[in-house]
């Protein structure tokens, strides 16, 4: 490490002017991808978290699913309640993982890493997009682990079905991460994370039709379930699964109905479109929030 070599490295290192003048977009892209990659590294490295995150879905699916089977209507139709529950559990896994990943921004702020990102010479928007993409990927991966269990609850391992479910989970994960990042922008303390879980994540989960069908509900509950964006993510996943198993049309109508607005059936494309739209709007809000300087 002699002085002369260091000096020459220093000289040759001067950032080429052409790159500064023309490479703005590529720099942003690189910033985006590194934020995404960080999410993945942190996810894969923390195996304990992956395993712990499996506990809740498995409890819901096998303990709650089995326990409730005798008293829910599906039993009388000779239909496994766990099959009904499965798409709801996929939604739950995505919801919790994506939200957790997004709200880790609060930890980044608390432990200072946020500052490393905020002073970087890239657009803040590219960092926010990278963060959302990272959270979405991680949540989809976690959901993919649950898909492995499909056979145990009577859901066939059909490639078309698996690809459909993965795509729908990815879209949901993106929407939830965007929501989480928007919320995280407003949270200044780690302790507030509890509020987010109680006031946002749990209501979203219970109102989404993950654990019960959104048919024949009292008016007040029906309205609330239609407001919950997660409803529009669970319904497509459930109908995809039901299309791949043999059930009577009447059962299909009871257990996997399309979401209705005052009697009007919301088409599948529109359900997914709503999720995408909500995700994009929330992402834009997040970008604006994080672009604001101190």
């Amino acid at each position, binding site marked *: 490490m002699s002085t002369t070599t260091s000096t020459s490295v220093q000289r040759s*290192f001067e950032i080429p002017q052409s790159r500064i003048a023309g490479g703005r977009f590529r720099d942003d892209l*690189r910033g985006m991808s590194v934020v995404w990659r960080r999410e993945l590294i942190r996810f894969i490295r923390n195996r304990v978290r992956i395993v712990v995150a499996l506990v809740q879905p498995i409890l819901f699916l096998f303990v709650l699913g089995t326990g409730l089977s005798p008293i829910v209507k599906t039993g009388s139709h000779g239909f496994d309640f766990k099959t009904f529950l499965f798409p709801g559990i996929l939604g739950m896994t995505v919801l919790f993982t994506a939200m957790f990943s997004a709200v880790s921004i609060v930890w980044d702020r608390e432990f200072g890493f946020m500052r490393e990102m*905020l*002073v970087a010479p890239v657009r803040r928007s590219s960092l926010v997009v990278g963060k959302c993409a990272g959270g979405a990927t991680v949540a989809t991966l976690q959901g993919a682990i649950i898909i492995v269990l499909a056979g145990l609850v009577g859901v066939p391992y059909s490639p078309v079905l698996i690809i459909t479910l993965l795509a729908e989970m990815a879209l949901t994960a993106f929407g939830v991460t965007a929501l989480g990042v928007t919320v995280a922008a407003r949270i200044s303390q780690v302790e507030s994370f509890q509020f987010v879980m109680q006031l946002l994540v749990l209501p979203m989960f219970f109102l989404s039709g993950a654990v019960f069908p959104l048919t024949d509900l009292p008016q007040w509950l029906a309205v609330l379930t239609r407001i919950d964006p997660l409803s529009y993510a669970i319904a497509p996943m459930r109908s995809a699964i039901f299309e791949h198993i043999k059930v009577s049309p009447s059962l299909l109508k009871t257990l996997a109905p399309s979401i209705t607005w005052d009697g009007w059936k919301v088409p599948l494309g529109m359900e997914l479109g709503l999720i995408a739209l909500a995700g994009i709007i929330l992402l834009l809000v997040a970008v604006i929030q994080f672009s604001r300087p101190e």
Partner: protein
Amino acid sequence: MPASPTKTATPTTRQSDIAVEVNALKKNYGDLAAVKGISLSVAPGETFGFLGPNGAGKSTTIKMLCTLVIPSGGTAHVAGFDVVKDRTEVRRRIGLVFQDTTLDDYLTAEENLRFHADLYGVPRQQVRSRLEQVMEMVGLWERRKNEVKTFSGGMKRRLEIARGLLHAPRVLFLDEPTVGLDPQTRSHIWNYIHELRKQEDITIFLTTHYMDEAENCDRIAIIDNGTIVALDTPEALKGSIGKDRIEIQTDNNKDAISVLKDHFGLDSSESEGSVAFHVPGGEQFVPRLFAELSIPIKSVRVARPTLDDVFMNYTGRTIRDAEASTTERMATNPWMRARSRR
């Protein structure tokens, strides 16, 4: 922020010669004026120290220069670019080491640095060699595969310094680089900083509230209550006080004090068995003292003024007192309390 290529590529000629140029810079937080219009300029290659108690406005100033905080008034240029108008250009050319660690504990040392290289657009083919160079400099190359959470406080700080240098910045900002470290680690960090000045053509702008560390700087600005009260080389600052401190032990301290007063016209005070007084050109004064003081002298000690004396001279209190009163102020002011929690 669309800027024409010519504008982005070439800083205006006049300012490119100056690493940091600050003019009447101000920052208010509500009613609280944190920085009250400071001006200074730092030449390329210089190590410039910002000395002052906590809450004097050091960190706020550094945050404005790093484009993290928008000034309430005045202008600042870093590496030739305006910190408000050309934020991205400034960011490309500066390295930052903050008081609090900004590393990701769950990534390895190398991953943290690669993350930084990508964020700062370090050309891909140079990442590997540059990584080795900066990590060797701080002695962490062997530990590059370890997760940062296994590192000690001193190692983390060293890694942050390495990271701050990775993209070959023109100006390196060090905000309290040694705060919270033990004395041995502190001196190591300073060795790295000295090494760095030899190896890289870089301007260093640092803040500290340790007087002994400020001595390492080419020039120092003493900041108190949001204003610069003195700015010069450490030697000149100490010289500006103009007096050395002399301590003598005699057979009869009481008589010595009165002789000093009557014969030499000097005010002196006795503490812990020795008599202390201030006089210009202390070393030249000692022979005269021996010749003319009738009382036998047992020992003499001549001390140059320290930066502590300088701080005292310009602010009327020691830096320790200033720290204490700031802490009190922060504890009683809910605005400051709320801010310091973050």
